[in-house]
């Protein structure tokens, strides 16, 4: 029988520690996912723009970066950061720093491709009309191209955010106490895998479903404008 008392008894640990990351441990799914999404997207904008520049010394490294990180597994990047970064930097790096760095570096490649595709989806005539009116390249980008590009990007960005949110569960493999790891820890003590993994599935689902709902509403709003 389903015995939910294991959830109730460990609720603080699972939610406050595992999901939010507010406890004594340096963990938490949201504490990892939110900055990873923000920083990953920010770096992605720069990579997307770098992929489109005419300056080869910027474009070529950016292209290599994207092609490399899209071609290797995320778990491998996390292990890399875990084993190699402390050796290269000669200082110990906590799980949180390792996980965040790995996610930002990895996801920026995907966000960069979304930004590049979004910018390229804006017809050439838009830039010609803008520069023909005397706007500089940067002004044309800021007032004409990016607003249209961002609108086109919304569905892909949200999809990528959802993927990233779920992928944070991989941080548990280096001992980072996120929601998945918290459930694992409780399960090792209580041996209630069904209840525990069902519970965290529901929690993950509530977040991803709200994200896609919010995205749909956002799409409808920009479609009206």
């Amino acid at each position, binding site marked *: 029988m389903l015995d939910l008392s294991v959830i109730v008894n460990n609720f603080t640990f699972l939610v406050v520690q595992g999901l939010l990351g507010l406890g004594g441990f340096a963990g938490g799914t949201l504490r990892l996912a939110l900055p990873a999404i923000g920083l990953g997207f920010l770096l992605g904008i720069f990579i997307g723009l770098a992929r489109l520049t005419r300056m080869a010394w910027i474009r070529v490294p950016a292209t290599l970066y994207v092609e490399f990180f899209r071609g290797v597994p995320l778990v491998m990047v996390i292990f890399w950061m875990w084993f190699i970064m402390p050796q290269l930097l000669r200082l110990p790096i906590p799980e949180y720093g390792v996980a965040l760095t790995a996610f930002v570096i990895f996801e920026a490649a995907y966000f960069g491709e979304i930004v590049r595709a979004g910018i390229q989806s804006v017809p050439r005539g838009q830039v010609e*009309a803008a520069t023909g009116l005397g*706007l500089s390249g940067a002004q044309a980008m800021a007032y004409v191209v990016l*607003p*249209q590009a961002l609108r086109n990007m919304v569905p892909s960005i949200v999809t990528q955010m959802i993927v990233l949110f779920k992928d944070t569960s991989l941080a548990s493999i280096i001992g980072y106490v996120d929601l998945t790891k918290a459930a694992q820890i409780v399960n090792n003590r209580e041996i209630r895998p069904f209840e525990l993994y069902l519970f965290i599935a529901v929690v993950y689902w509530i977040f991803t479903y709200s994200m896609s709902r919010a995205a749909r509403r956002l799409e409808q709003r920009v479609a009206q404008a």
Partner: protein
Amino acid sequence: MAEPAIAFRLVNKFFGRLHVLKDIDLTVAPGEVVVVCGPSGSGKSTLIRCVNALERVQSGEIVVLGESVTSAGANLTRLRTQVGMVFQSFNLFPHMTALQNIMLAPLKVRRLARAEVEKTARALLERVGIPDKADNYPANLSGGQQQRVAIARALAMHPKIMLFDEPTSALDPEMINEVLEVMTDLARDGMTMMVVTHEMGFARRVARRIVFMDGGVVVEEAAPEAFFASPTSDRARQFLSKILSH
């Protein structure tokens, strides 16, 4: 003779190995309306796109309003604020209303005060006959209305020269005249204009001169009456018989 508004001097332009403009020598006087026509691929669009440096040329010189466009240090921003351009596919900014489309460049390039810019923009919409469409987005305007907004947008920078690149080619037949009327008014007001078009009625009524191009070369230059009555080149004769036969 006064200094020409636009002067092409031995201009050559290549797209890769394709030689699209060959030794172009052409001047346009201030206040003159020149219609450029010719078969597709003859280089007529490329020709007028060189005037505001949307296309760069490989050799020769283009002087616009007394300043070289083709020299290395040319001030392109200044050039483009003095030369308005209207495109075949309108190229309105879809995320902005008609009014915002018109106001963007005066606000961001000229950095004029918003109230003044809005007043000018509304007056321009009045002038092109759609004052009630100020708050419409391009998607909610007909093709003819969009093109008139595009003309108003170009005029908002108070250009001295207007370039039209097949402004009516993408329009349904019943909307062509409303755009041509705006262009005719503009010509009557003394605007210097280069117009790439197949509207031979407009050319006959409004143009001071017809430039006929084929294969990247200016084949013939003549006043409209002379050009339509007795074209001197075979190629122009063939072209006219094709487009005027129906």
